[in-house]
């Protein structure tokens, strides 16, 4: 079959794909990492995402009509992650490794407090319903705007805006509760230590 004028040459497609890969490798990896909760699965997911994207790149490029392809890439990662959970029948663990990097100017006390707060946020993110968690990852880890998130999730712009608003609200409440729980546990521990010390 002869190549139509609309179809790009293989070399041009490969060049375009390389550009897409370079521009969005970190986005796909970040999404995968926060979605699955560990580096091992995140690496697999990232690799599979780009292989699948390569396979369908020609068509995606034609159908995108010049719009950014990041939402399409993230949608591929989303579908693959969903398959991963279906196969393994499990949810992601909460990633907390990244809370170790805080500004060096903080005092030790601030550092510990900041780390605990970030851990609670990440724990809360892990407990959110899937669609809310994904929307927050796309917004805050990838910096996607409402329109991009809407395209990646197959929703309207309005529905996406509401989804993100509700996700932030729910998370804020959750983190507050987690903070109170943590303080209660810490208080009980120190109380117990006091009682034990009195005996």
């Amino acid at each position, binding site marked *: *079959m002869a*190549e139509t004028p609309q*179809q790009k040459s*293989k070399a041009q*497609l*490969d060049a375009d*794909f*390389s550009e897409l*890969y370079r521009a969005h*490798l*970190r*986005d796909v*990896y*970040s999404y995968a*990492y*926060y979605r699955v909760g560990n*580096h091992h699965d*995140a*690496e697999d997911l*990232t*690799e599979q995402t*780009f*292989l699948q994207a*390569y*396979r369908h*790149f*020609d*068509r995606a490029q034609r159908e995108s009509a010049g719009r950014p392809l990041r939402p399409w890439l993230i949608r591929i990662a989303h579908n693959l992650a969903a398959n991963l959970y279906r196969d393994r029948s499990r949810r992601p663990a909460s990633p907390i490794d*990244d*809370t170790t*990097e805080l500004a060096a100017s903080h005092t030790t006390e601030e550092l510990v407090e900041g780390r605990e*707060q*970030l851990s609670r*946020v*990440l724990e809360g*993110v892990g407990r959110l319903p899937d669609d809310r968690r994904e929307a*927050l*990852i796309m917004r*805050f*880890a*990838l910096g996607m705007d409402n329109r991009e998130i809407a395209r990646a999730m197959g929703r309207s712009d309005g529905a996406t805006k509401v989804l993100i608003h509700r996700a*932030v609200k729910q*998370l*804020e409440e959750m*983190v507050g509760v987690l903070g109170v729980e943590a303080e209660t546990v810490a208080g009980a521990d120190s109380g117990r230590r006091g009682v034990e010390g009195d005996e």
Partner: protein
Amino acid sequence: MSDAASSFEGLLHQALSPVEPPEDLVRRLEGTLTSLTESAVEELEAWELSAMRDPRNWVRPATAVVVGGSAGVALVLLRTRHRAHPRGRELLGARTAAERAVGDLRAHTRRLLDR
């Protein structure tokens, strides 16, 4: 937006900071993508030369070109390479690789023709 909401969103930005992909993943992925683009051309040529001696195969190169356009051939070849060279493609001779590629391409092409 209230200060509290704004500071919570700041916290979210900090908690969900972008994660850099590990170096070994970058190397592996770039190697895979490079071999996808290079091997598709090289091995398709090798297959065409041998397959064209048999008139029954004349229809297949045409199909393969179509498949090549959509990168299907490249992926078939990648699968072949992975199966044939789990620890490095240099271990297997070019002839064996080409034969395996032909086998996979035939199967893939047959599936396409059967659609």
